[in-house]
């Protein structure tokens, strides 16, 4: 009896997943009856609000790409660096100082990062480069990079910690310096865990909403300039749902098509990371 009740709790998660997929699909089907999948995925013009309407998702993908790419550029190497520093170089008092800093950073709500981007990072970028727009992809990318930093750092830290001591000692015994052991022994041994942390960070940056909505703007366009205003997939969903779009209209339905794209890509990332973490656990033990 109790077991059945608890089983229902566990089953609840599966139901939630199915619920997400079915409800999104149901609304998106209505959208795809009016806009072909090909037009949606390959179109280069996103203009859902004005006539003539056009639903090519690539401009939103471009905005999301800039933010994710920039965040990766900042967050991944820095996170890995922190993981290595904490494990191989830092004395324990410094480690005990840095760890809480990371935990605080990880606990800061995303809307605060958005505020930070608007009031600190963007003016700072504008000081460096006067042509930077008020809303720009670079500022969003920087804060999203800072946002994923603690996650990458703590996952890399775990992965590096799981490397057996004997393997590192063998490196030292052969006369390698600390940095040589770190780059040629520790990182390769912990690689699958490190890559898994990178993928999870990418997935998080990809689905990040509030900071990006505040900082990156709402101008869907394909651009090579990261200092221009763009719009991400998530920011578009927020824009439509906070505006007064009538339910059942095509732009209302379009957020579910965008949502499915978002869900599909982040699931892909997560499956990959899950697989890698599993693989690395069995190696580590």
């Amino acid at each position, binding site marked *: 009896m109790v077991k059945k009740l608890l089983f229902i709790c566990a089953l609840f998660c599966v139901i*939630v997943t199915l619920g997400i997929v079915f*409800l999104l699909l149901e609304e998106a089907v209505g959208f795809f009856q009016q806009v072909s999948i090909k037009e949606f995925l390959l179109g280069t013009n996103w203009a859902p609000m004005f006539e003539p309407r056009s639903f090519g998702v690539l401009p939103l993908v471009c905005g999301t790409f800039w933010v994710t790419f920039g965040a990766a550029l900042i967050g991944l190497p820095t996170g890995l660096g922190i993981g290595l520093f904490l494990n191989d170089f830092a004395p324990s008092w410094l480690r005990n100082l840095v760890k809480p800093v990371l935990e*605080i950073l990880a606990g800061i*709500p995303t*809307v605060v990062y958005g*505020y930070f981007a608007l009031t600190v990072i963007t003016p700072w970028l504008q000081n460096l480069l006067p042509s930077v727009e008020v809303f720009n992809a670079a500022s969003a990318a920087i804060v999203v990079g800072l946002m994923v930093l603690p996650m990458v750092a703590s996952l890399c830290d775990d992965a590096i910690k799981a490397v057996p001591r004997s393997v590192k000692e063998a490196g030292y015994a052969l006369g390698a310096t600390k940095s040589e052991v770190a780059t040629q022994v520790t990182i390769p041994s912990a690689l699958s865990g490190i890559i898994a942390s990178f993928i999870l960070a990418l997935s998080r940056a990809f689905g990040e909403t*509030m900071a990006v909505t505040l900082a990156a703007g709402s101008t869907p366009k394909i651009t090579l300039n990261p200092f221009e205003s763009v719009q991400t997939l998530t920011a578009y969903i927020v824009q439509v749902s906070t505006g007064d779009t009538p339910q059942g209209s095509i732009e209302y339905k379009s957020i579910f098509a965008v949502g499915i794209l978002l869900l599909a890509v982040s699931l892909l990332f997560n*499956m990959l990371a899950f697989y890698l973490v599993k693989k690395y656990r069995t190696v580590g033990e």
Partner: protein
Amino acid sequence: MSEIDLTQGSTGLSNQVINRAPDLQGQFLSGSTLWRPRRGRRKFFGVLFLLLTLLATLIGVAALIVLLESVISQGWSRLSWDFINNFPSRIASRAGIKAALVGSVYLTGLVAVIAIPVGVGAAVYLEEFAADTRWRRIIDINIANLAGVPSIVYGMLGLMLFVRICAFGHSLLAGACTMSLLILPVIIVTSREALKTVPQGVRLAALGLGATKWQTVRAHVLPTALPGILTGVILSLSRAVGETAPLLMIGALSYMAFVPESPMDDFTVLPIQIFNWSSRPQDEFRVAAAAGILVLMGILLTVNSCAIVMRMRYQRKMQW
């Protein structure tokens, strides 16, 4: 072939020796690959590498300091009892966070009531009762994936399921249900970790004395794992306090001049109020946003440090 190469530029070693260990000798003898430790260069790269990782760490620490400094310098002077006790206003200097603060507290309470029993229940089932079958593996993968779904997608689910299908409207209840779904995977994962730390001996001893499986779990496993479970629960609730996107989706208000009184009332929460103020161009509202952030982060820091202290004490005690 290689033997001819090896003897070129030879240092007078006999052919016999070279024949016996050609590979080993090859490394040391041929002039181009003569062994050089290059200690200066390697030491230089060692220091460079250390500095790079140190720089990475400093970036993390500096980010936190700059962030805190900017929020405090902007918002500190704006903090007052009026700010906490006033409703939002079109006049920036009179705007306060009363409705948002109350909304956040109510929402978190409701989320706790909904998410904790289901989450801990699921964790207990998966750790204590489920056999290692295909079903359990499906649920495992499923939970790992749910934890990675972007929060805004939960918002869309909440909008369809709770606001439309269950007809809760844009109410506190709809928000709480949505948030509960969002933090459920986190509660399950952390509770399972806590249950895993309970030594097998505790279970075997109880079972050996004739307790049923459920009696064992209720009277021995759960109390032992309780501090760990609580830590996870507090951390995930604090995530719910700071989350914004799903509530924007289900239509939480950004202007509210009353306090919600029942779960079916409209509501707003602190992060939404901050989002609203931050997105306005006027500086006065940005200052109000900074003050709101100070309140929000004050709450989160207090709650999180409680959880962290609890975890540390728990880890110290649990040296089996």
